[in-house]
């Protein structure tokens, strides 16, 4: 089942795909662009993986890792489908990262990889922006690069784990203004989803709503104000985001 979370007519609703847009839980059918899309789940702890696709790691000139490169993000950086992400005027390299997001469904502590998938509730598409200009070499990747307001785009749907036949065979694609720039497949993950759950739960307890962003494949390019960035993952839908200049962002 695919579920979204939208704001419409003064309330927040669960929403489902419909041939004319989206169907709200109360039965109303709306166009996709007349609802405000929120992240499909209220995020708990957000984990993100650096360099978890072999080719992307090569692209950034990293060598073999001793353990998964995990960092944490705050829920305040999250926005939904069709949201707007600001590109500050002073930056030269801001890029998207299309990632498979794994949502934890049960408390998980010291789980082995063989049983790890029983703890997964479902999946979403994530677009985890980074601004390379702000990279500093202390507690990398630093939050000014990876934890900016509007920098973690999630959705449009949360898809039940049971609806995905083989999560290790999903293609990821990112289009900028309609041109395909990034393409990868979850079969190339350096650390697999079960291994990530085993690793994280070996030293901390995972809880329902925790989200693991499993890393991005090669093919990241700079985006500019006015660009439309679309991330797709097989079976999960199509996540749309727009890049806004400081002026378009319309702060007073």
């Amino acid at each position, binding site marked *: 089942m695919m579920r979204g979370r939208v704001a419409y007519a003064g309330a927040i609703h669960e929403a489902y795909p419909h041939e004319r847009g989206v169907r709200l839980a109360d039965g109303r059918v709306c166009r996709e662009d007349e609802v405000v899309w929120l992240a499909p789940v209220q995020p*708990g*702890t957000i*984990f993100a993986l650096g360099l978890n696709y072999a080719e992307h790691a090569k692209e950034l000139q990293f060598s073999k890792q001793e*353990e998964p*490169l*995990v*960092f*944490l*993000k*705050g*829920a*305040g*950086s999250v926005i939904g489908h069709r949201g707007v992400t600001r590109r500050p005027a002073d930056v030269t390299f801001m890029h998207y990262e299309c990632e498979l997001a794994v949502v934890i469904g049960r408390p998980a502590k010291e789980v082995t990889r063989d049983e790890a998938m029983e703890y997964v509730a479902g999946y979403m598409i994530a677009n985890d922006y980074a601004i390379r200009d*702000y990279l*500093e*070499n*202390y*507690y*990398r990747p*630093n*939050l*000014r690069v990876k*934890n*900016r*307001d509007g920098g973690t785009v999630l959705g449009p749907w949360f898809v039940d784990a049971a609806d995905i036949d083989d999560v290790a065979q999903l293609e990821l694609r990112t289009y900028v203004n309609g041109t395909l720039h990034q393409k990868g497949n979850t079969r190339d993950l350096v650390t697999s989803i079960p291994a990530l759950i085993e690793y994280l739960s*070996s*030293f*901390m*307890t*995972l*809880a329902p709503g925790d989200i693991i962003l499993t890393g991005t494949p090669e093919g990241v390019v700079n985006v500019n104000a006015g660009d439309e960035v679309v991330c797709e993952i097989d079976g999960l839908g199509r996540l749309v985001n727009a890049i806004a200049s400081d002026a378009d962002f319309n702060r007073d």
Partner: protein
Amino acid sequence: MFALDDHRIHLAAEPFARDVDARSVSALLASGAACRPPVDGTVYGTLLNDRAALDALGGAVNAAPYKAPPKAPVLYVKPRNTFAGHRARVVVPDDEQGVQVGGSLGVVIGRTACRVHVGNALDYVAGYTVVADLSVPHESVYRPSVRFRARDGFCVIGPAVVARRHVSDPDALRVAISIEGTEPFIANTSTSIRDVARLIADVTDFMTLAPGDVLTLGVPHGAPVAHVGDEIGVAIGDWPPLCFSMTAKAGGGQ
């Protein structure tokens, strides 16, 4: 909603936090009551904000892997599994290494803080609390593993949030970290590179802080290391001290 009038304290046995005066907090704690953390937002830790910590890196900041001194605040997230309250028993993963007890001032945000000016940054503060930011000791601050700071129980908070009106100067507070049986380790918030107002301004330049979020001012350089069996107290100013102990096993069986 995060509202605070006087002292917010959440006794482990009660469904909601209380908001009471300092005398009542002392009376509640005198019985040895355990508490939940008095906050439930996101906790952001700040690193290298103590002048001595940056000085200790010395010329290394200009060499690989750091290559330049830090510019923006160095931050990390303490995830929700790390939250623990007054009288918690925290598991030591490896007793040879021990666990470093980074006692820090916790700045509790009272209203949504985005692009805050340094001049009125303290208006966004609901109050202050004590944070024991625990970590497995590690040398490199380049790309440390999350398993050093994100373990269950590794962010002990409380026992109370003290309303801002009770704290005349958050940048002149004595921090004392006591491991039972040893001389207390003494630090002071006055040695911070960014004071509370500057830290809030610099952080909210790129990320919004929400009511109930906590930003630590940063752990002092050379904070002590605790081991299994240690009873620890972290005190700031004359506020009720935060107490917890270190144990070898989950559940704290004696």
